[in-house]
């Protein structure tokens, strides 16, 4: 189902944000080289976009002609490829090129924004004039040249996706399909979805910086349907990273396929748990969805500077036990959420949101950092040149605690353990959040017993943080292809957590009477 944008606006609940793991992907991907400029190239990215220092300065000057505190030009070129295997054949491909420049000017808390897909001087100047209409003061002196900042090294590739042909990718899809079919005779249908992308961004800022970043991304998803008699069950798994072709080893693909098959087959036995409040164990890895929803979004400083987040007045306060430390870090090499620089040209970094149980720092973009009198945390992100940036998460995780997974399971009399998830959502102001558990287990008398499936879990962010009573020492990041949606913009993210016990949450299920 596609919700058209104009309807989405109508349906959008106030202050909510959504995290999804879509089984059916948008494309990501690649092809030929693009713009070749007649202007004098000074930098490979400038060559790519067909601009030079002088044209960039001219557009910046027009953009800031009526005043500016912050301004940037965000040039982007993304080439994406996707492939679909259904019914044993790779019979559909998609490729796309998304190219344009976004022009932003900020005066105080006011933002003017325009973009153009036509990277010629007249079009860029027209867009600059449109964006600058937000301001009504006197002109800012724009820099005459832009000083290139050093390239990041978090996701360098030896072979760009543009050099990987379909002939190399097809055997990967075939391998995944055959592996899945070989794992259980009841597997009836296998679909495999491939995506790769090369994104190139070049950000020229009012303070005279030129940031360039080549951001690769790839993802493979396998969807399995098994049949037993008249009963069908579907499950899936995917892996995603800022990686290159060689990352897809047989071992990595086999692990992914086995996860999908195991998740599918267990559903024939799985039932709904009893409905109501109970202790919930979150297995390590993908359960980082708890952090993303229960605290991460509420810590994005745009909500806090407006006073609309439940965390708006909590900095410096105790929000969790001393063994709880929650971090958002973009500088983890090759992770899906990794970034060398954010989309405002700030160096990306590591932000400790909760340190030993104390609420420490929001995630800032330039606008909120200025308002709070702080440095940006490198959290300003945008979906593409079509959007202005705002504070977002990157890779969000909890650090190891003092307990073990076995101790946590042994501590629960009647509860559940959650393992895989499809999506989550949060209400920023009330703090209520949810996540959907695809697979999990009942825990009875300190033992893992019967499989469960398809339950939504709902809680309140600050209350759940207080109720984290045990944290194990097995933290890991999930390798799945998570996408975070906020105010109509999607960005790739990562998340992770050690095994954690939340003493009480509300679990969807059946009423036992």
């Amino acid at each position, binding site marked *: *189902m596609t919700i058209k944008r*104009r*309807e989405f*606006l*109508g349906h*959008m*609940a*106030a*202050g909510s944000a959504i995290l999804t793991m879509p089984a059916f992907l948008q494309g990501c991907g690649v092809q030929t080289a*693009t*713009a070749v400029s007649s202007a004098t190239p000074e930098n490979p990215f400038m060559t790519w976009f067909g601009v030079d220092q002088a044209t960039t300065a001219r557009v910046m000057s027009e953009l800031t002609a009526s005043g500016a505190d912050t301004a940037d030009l965000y040039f982007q070129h993304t080439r994406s490829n996707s492939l679909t295997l259904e019914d044993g*054949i790779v*019979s*559909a*491909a*998609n*490729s796309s*090129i*998304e*190219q*344009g420049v976004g022009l932003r000017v900020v005066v105080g808390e006011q*933002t003017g*924004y*325009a973009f153009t*897909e036509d990277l010629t001087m007249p079009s860029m100047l027209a867009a600059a004039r449109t964006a600058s209409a*937000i301001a009504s003061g006197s002109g800012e002196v724009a820099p005459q040249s832009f000083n290139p900042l050093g390239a990041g090294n978090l996701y360098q590739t030896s072979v760009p996706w543009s050099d990987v*042909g*379909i002939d190399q990718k097809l055997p990967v899809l075939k391998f995944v399909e055959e592996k899945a079919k070989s794992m259980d005779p009841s597997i*009836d*249908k296998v679909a495999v979805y491939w995506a790769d992308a090369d994104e190139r961004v070049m950000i020229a800022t009012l303070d005279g910086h030129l940031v360039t970043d080549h951001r690769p991304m790839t993802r493979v998803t396998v*969807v399995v349907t098994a049949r037993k008699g008249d009963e*069908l069950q*579907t499950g899936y798994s995917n892996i995603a990273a800022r990686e290159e072709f060689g990352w897809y080893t047989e071992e990595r693909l086999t692990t992914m396929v086995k996860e999908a098959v195991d998740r599918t087959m267990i*559903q024939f036995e799985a039932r709904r748990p009893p*409905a*109501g*409040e109970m202790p919930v164990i979150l297995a390590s890895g993908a359960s980082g969805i708890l952090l993303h929803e229960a605290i991460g979004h509420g810590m994005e400083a745009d909500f806090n500077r*407006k*006073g*609309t*987040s*439940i*965390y708006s*007045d909590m900095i410096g306060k105790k929000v969790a036990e001393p063994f709880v430390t929650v971090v958002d870090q973009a500088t983890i090499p090759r992770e899906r959420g990794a970034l060398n620089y954010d989309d405002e040209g700030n160096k990306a970094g590591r932000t400790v949101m909760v340190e030993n149980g104390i609420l420490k720092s929001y995630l800032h973009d330039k606008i909120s950092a200025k308002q709070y009198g702080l440095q940006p945390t490198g959290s300003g992100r945008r979906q593409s040149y*079509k959007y202005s940036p705002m504070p977002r998460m990157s890779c969000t995780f909890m650090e190891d605690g003092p307990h073990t997974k076995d101790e946590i399971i042994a501590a629960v009399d009647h509860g559940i353990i959650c393992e895989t998830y*499809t999506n989550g959502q949060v*209400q920023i*102001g*009330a*703090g*209520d*959040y949810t996540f959907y558990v695809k697979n999990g287990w009942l825990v009875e008398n300190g033992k893992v017993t019967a499989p469960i*499936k*398809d*339950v939504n879990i709902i809680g309140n962010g600050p209350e759940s943080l207080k109720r984290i009573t045990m944290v194990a020492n097995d933290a890991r990041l999930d390798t799945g292809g998570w996408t975070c949606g906020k105010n109509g913009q999607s960005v790739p993210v990562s998340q992770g957590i050690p095994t954690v016990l939340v003493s009480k949450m*509300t679990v*969807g*299920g059946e*009423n036992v*009477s």
Partner: protein
Amino acid sequence: MSADLQNRAVQAIELAKGAGAAEAWATASQGRNVEFEYRDGALEKVKDTTSRSLNINVYAGGRYSSHQTTDLNPERLKGFVAEAVAITRALEPDEHRLITPAELFNGRPTVDLDLVDAAVAGITREQRLAWCEELDKVATAHERVISATAGIYDGTSNSASASSNGFTGTHAETYCWYGTNITLMDQGDKRASDGYYVGGQHVASLPAATGVAQTGLERALNRLGTEKGPTIKTSMIVDAQAAGSLVGRLLGPANARRVHQGQSFWADLVGKQAFSEKLTISDDPLIPRGFGSRLFDGEGISAKYLPIVENGVVRNLYVDTYHGRKAGMAPTTGSASNRVIAPGKLSLDGLLKEVGNGVYVTSWLGGNADQTTGDFSLGLRGHMIENGEIGRPVGEMNVTGNLRDLFSQLELVGSDVYQYSSTLTPSLVFGGVDFSGA
């Protein structure tokens, strides 16, 4: 405008044929979009953009692929299309991948869907600011308001399509939406928030901004003091606005692709009494000013009224040409237009009186459904229903069940159709629903 776009589409097909494509389908699009966001007495964001793109589907050597680009530089476009054809040739052959048969283009309706209002292009900065100020004034007129954001979103979208086997068609539409999101101080650190937006193709048809903001403020005020509801099995009224997404979840797998891939609980339901006899759903592409109205679908199939469910009996599924061919089903359309749930006679008040006690759902929070089995579990916000009246606000609850079972337990359908969506549904009443809360 549409002549330029039509030329662009036709030229793309010529490029594809020149590069060796047997058949090709192209769509050229262009849009203008203006957004004004106004927060707490001041303009916060203005976004004014014009965008464009070209989509092309290529059929070559019994193979198929699809491509999009925003880079319309003629020289590079030529390279892009040549590469698209080369990508197609590198795939595996599939006898079912064929361009839409030309006979499905026949019988295109000629009615005026009335989707364009020339006044939209003439909306001025002053008009948008005036709406913002009206919305803001009403939205902030309460002592508990922390912040209110008013938004105006208007624009025009145009597209033209052409195919190598004779299809041509254009679609143009204007839109204008406005409303507010409001956050109020609640107990402790909690904030209550909600909002309300209205929109349409025609500016003159929109309700006054002050009334829209008033509704938004009332919705936010209704959230104050929300507490966790009970764990209980009881009746559920889903209000007309929230019912749209629930119907969307029901219909999500009602298509040939899902059925053929073994991922749909609708697989064997055509011709059967699958749901409550109170349920009647149709797909109607020809509603004047409908948000999903169109004269042809994305494959060029001429638009026509399609019954999906009649009194609980499944009549048709959404069938695109490719998966229809694979599954042995005649094509209907692969994508929904306006999904219309036949309304009943009772107002919301009437439904509340009939139900007596239960849970009234006003919005969802997260949750999901398994499209293969229909199992679902959704977070919700709303109110308890007590003695036929809307009672205390509740949240932090889930509703859990199976979509097919749920729509078999549909007991009443209201008369209060929500207008601002392509899913036109009134409030729905279900019996015996599992809620989890405190």
